């Protein structure tokens, strides 16, 4: 039965993993996401659902455990924060190259380097343009509430298995740490080993039986022509994802003369900025990308006949704004406003930036 609970964003990730039938979590402590593994270890889901939870020796080991589990057709995940996710890039590109389904959660903090433990959105390029080597894409979901932290675990696994592709939940220190009420879903049972064989036995390493050839999980093909064909296949998959899986939300856009584009916690702050701006008589709306890849390019383009200018608000030096500019193709003015290093912008700052950079700029 659905229940209402008060929890942190990071706790919601853990709760959702247990309830959606996740088979394994492999992680390594890092602020501001340590509550994910702490919650799992306290809950002991191995007694409840049989879910495996293991603290790995490093982020590198954790993501490679995810590779191993995913290669077996199991529903497996890891979570970390920016410096840890940088370490995971090797494993993520191998997972993308081997076409394995899995879930990675990044509770983003300020960088570069060790940076800070405060929230930021400066890993957008890494998540959406491929932080590891090679031509690959992740499906990137950007929650803006604790409820979405919860919901996107199940959605993430669904998309990961649908496309046999890694999915990343791109959160940040605000969403990970803040507490909100969450409607938690009913328990979904984990798949039995027999069900895994039935569903994923055509590719997963479930043990070579007499009725099939051996299954090999690999991203290696030394034949250049075949490797190119494989890359073309991947590109067709990403194209299909771009056609079918774009998700976004529009707020107060019906009469908007100006548009804010923001995701995650920035989009929450923008909602307040819209109220302040409208009190001042500025008609501004918000377009919130929910999927960062695939990006809601067409949704932005559909606003171009209506709005006079767009302000992209992110806690970065200006990363997502590049995708806004690619969508707009110079047809209206696009500016970026952001804070960095763990500083969170205020609604008033955003209204001021809209006035100075777009309306009077």
């Amino acid at each position, binding site marked *: 039965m659905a229940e209402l609970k008060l929890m942190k964003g990071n706790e919601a990730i853990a709760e959702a993993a247990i309830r959606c039938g996740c088979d394994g979590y492999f992680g390594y402590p890092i602020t501001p996401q340590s509550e994910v593994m702490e919650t799992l270890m306290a809950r002991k889901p191995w007694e409840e659902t049989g879910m495996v939870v293991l603290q790995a020796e490093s982020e590198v*080991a954790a993501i490679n455990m995810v590779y*191993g589990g995913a290669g077996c057709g199991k529903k497996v995940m890891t979570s970390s924060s920016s410096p840890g996710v940088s370490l995971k890039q090797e494993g993520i590109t191998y997972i993308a190259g081997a076409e394995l389904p899995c879930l990675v959660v990044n509770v983003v903090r300020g960088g570069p380097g060790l940076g800070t433990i405060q929230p930021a959105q400066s890993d957008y390029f890494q998540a959406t343009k491929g932080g590891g080597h090679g031509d690959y894409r992740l499906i990137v979901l950007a929650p803006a509430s604790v409820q979405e932290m919860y919901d996107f675990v199940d959605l993430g696994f669904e998309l990961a298995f649908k496309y046999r592709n890694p999915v990343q939940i791109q959160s940040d220190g605000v969403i990970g740490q803040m507490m909100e009420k969450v409607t938690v879903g009913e328990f979904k049972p984990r798949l039995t080993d027999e069900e895994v064989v039935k569903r994923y036995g055509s590719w997963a390493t479930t043990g070579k039986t007499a009725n099939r050839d051996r299954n090999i999980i690999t991203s290696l093909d030394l034949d250049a022509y075949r490797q190119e064909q494989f890359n073309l296949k991947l590109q067709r998959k990403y194209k299909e994802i771009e056609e079918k899986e774009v998700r976004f939300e529009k707020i107060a856009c019906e009469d908007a003369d100006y548009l804010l584009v923001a995701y995650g916690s920035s989009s929450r702050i923008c909602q307040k900025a819209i109220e302040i701006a409208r009190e001042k008589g500025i008609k501004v709306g918000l377009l919130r990308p929910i999927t960062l890849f695939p990006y809601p390019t067409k949704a932005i383009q559909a606003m171009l006949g209506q709005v006079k200018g767009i302000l992209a608000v992110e806690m970065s030096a200006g990363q997502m704004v590049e995708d806004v500019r690619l969508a707009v193709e110079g047809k209206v003015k696009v500016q970026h406003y952001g804070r960095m290093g763990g500083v969170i912008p205020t609604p008033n700052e955003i209204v001021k930036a809209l006035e100075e950079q777009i309306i009077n700029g």
Partner: protein
Amino acid sequence: MDIKDIIKEENLVYSKTKVLTDNVMHYCPGCTHGVVHKILAEVIDELNIQEKTIGVTPVGCAVLAYNYLHIDWQEAAHGRAPAVATAINRLYPEKYVFTYQGDGDLASIGAAEIIHACNRGEKMLVIFINNGIYGMTGGQMAPTTLEGMPTSTSPYGRDVKMTGQPLKITELIAQLPGTCYVTRQAAHTPAAVRKLKKAITKAFDNTGKKKGTSFIEVVSTCNSGWKLSPVKSNEWMVEHMFPYYPLGDMKDE
């Protein structure tokens, strides 16, 4: 007696195990990998665990090992095979999981993963091929390269003042309480092959009994990398590798 009278089904005393594929191996003539693959395939066949065995290949010459054994395989990133195998072992406790790794993969870039997997006592076995060189990339210095041994990145011989002593990682592994069986073997003579086969059989048996991690180092040759003939390589291995890497069991619990 005509040859046709001898070559008959009832006179068959040895045949290729069904676990080995018919693919032509990419290994150089004289390389130890082929022998170890064959033994591994025979043991899997004899124990009748083909359907339950999942192998994890390394990055190195054995990256393509999955072409040669009819079992399910995962190809891991360089050094990460023990982490990959850990998850398979945890999620499928009834399977027989093994990693097959070279010295660069296991003792250099993957040192952390192997130490921690063995320390956790993952119920798996590890085949560690130590030929003291990076074979696939063209003969560079490995952590296990002997002092004074020339390689393409130590062309004047390994200078231990610059790069440290050759790493006896198997001795380190034997210290870890998670391991139940740690041994160093070779595959250069029929007697050595028989001993290695016994060791691999014991290791799979330990895995089935959930005893802990079994670790088998195979002191091996790389005649291409060493720039010696296969026969000379075996002689060089006996003369130089065995004194530094002595054969035998280090732990058998």
